[in-house]
């Protein structure tokens, strides 16, 4: 039975998982969850993720939520297939992947997601983007990207000279970010820019990006 992924094709966290599934050439069925109808807050979805957030994954009788736990599971379960995302054969390389997975989660994600939320999601919810919040988060994001610029001037990808799950986790949010007027934060850092162009040119992501449109396209 194929994996079932509950989520939405334009959602950042759902597409994080979809990109991983494509990198591993794993068949799955995307089961749409209608966010506008608050389907993710209804009992049948809460039974899958009590926090009422997409995505959730069903693999026979295992149900998982939290996109980064799902990608880790997929990358581990299918470690012999497709791209080597976890570097499981080398404990130290695997540990460095874990470091940069955490960096994305703890350092990059908060300012990045706040900015993307203010710019794209708040208007859909009928709110005005809060420029003060955007400004503050852009400053933090710039500081984080300065660290990335230094790192990427010594290694091709974040955890080393190999593409890994740590790079993949950055794709979805940054993809939307690059459609804002603040894309210069990436473009003005030459090594970050090269890295960004490389990781977004991967076929697994290009397939997923086709569905990433806000505004009911």
């Amino acid at each position: 039975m194929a994996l079932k992924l509950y989520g939405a094709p334009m959602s950042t966290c759902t597409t994080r998982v979809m990109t991983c599934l494509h990198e591993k050439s794993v068949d799955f069925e995307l089961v749409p969850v209608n966010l506008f109808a608050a389907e993710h807050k209804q009992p049948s979805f809460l039974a899958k993720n009590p926090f009422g957030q997409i995505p959730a994954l069903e693999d026979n009788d295992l149900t998982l939520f939290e996109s980064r736990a799902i990608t880790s599971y997929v990358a581990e379960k299918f470690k012999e297939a497709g791209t080597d995302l976890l570097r499981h054969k080398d404990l130290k390389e695997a540990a460095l992947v874990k470091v940069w997975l955490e960096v994305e989660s703890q350092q990059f994600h908060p300012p990045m997601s706040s900015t993307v939320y203010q710019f794209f999601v708040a208007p859909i919810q009928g709110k005005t983007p809060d420029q003060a919040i955007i400004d503050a988060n852009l400053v933090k994001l710039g500081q984080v990207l300065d660290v990335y610029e230094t790192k990427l001037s010594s290694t091709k990808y974040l955890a080393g000279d190999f593409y890994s799950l740590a790079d993949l986790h950055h794709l979805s949010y940054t993809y939307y970010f690059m459609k804002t007027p603040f894309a210069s934060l990436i473009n003005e850092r030459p090594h970050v820019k090269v890295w960004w162009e490389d990781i977004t040119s991967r076929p697994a992501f290009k397939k997923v990006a086709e569905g990433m449109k806000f505004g009911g396209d």
Partner: protein
Amino acid sequence: MCFREKFVYITPSKSSLKRAEIRSLNNKMVVKVFGPVHAACPQRVLACLLEKDVDFEIVHVNLDQGEHKQPDFLVRQPFGQVPAIEDGDFRLFESRAIIRYYAAKYAERGPNLLGKTLEERALVDQWLEVEAHNFNDLVYTMVLQLVVLPRMGQPGDLALVHSCEQKLEKVLDIYEQRLSNSKYLAGESFTLADLTHLPGTRYLMNEAKMGHLITERKHINAWWEDISSRPAWKKLMNLACF
């Protein structure tokens, strides 16, 4: 379980060496953990090392004096945060990456903190993510506003605390439901998913005086009593003089 005495000393990085206790000397390399012993994220790492009976040395980093933002430290952790570790010539940062590494490296030793099957490991990962994304931000903000800022002579934002508290109540209701179905977060055994909550919850209950959030929920309360009475955690509390 027999607790082997370890060679553990606390090294102030700029002043003279101070040995807290020396019981057994072994010449092998110990893991150096850079950070203050009272800070939450270093404690996450230390709790894991103690569970796994891994020798370590705490190298104090003086946050009040901004030592973590100095060039010497930024070489170890470019984001200027504690902890960082040095294990021979291998270096890591991000506490949740460090605990995953040591839980994997010493999987055969001590309690199994990662889960045995792929599915068990996925559930451990899931609840580690829940802590990182649904729990930590709220607890961190509350402790910052209620404890850290006042210590620095600045007023805390009580409206923000109240808003976080309301959100945390909802999150803890979900934990309560989960823990009414299983003894620990990822299943019937203590794992990293539980361990990762120890430092933040302790701060929440003690310095931030928000203990009612835990004690008012029967299953969470029982879970907290259980995980905070583990010998490794008690040993860490001793080290930290809590």
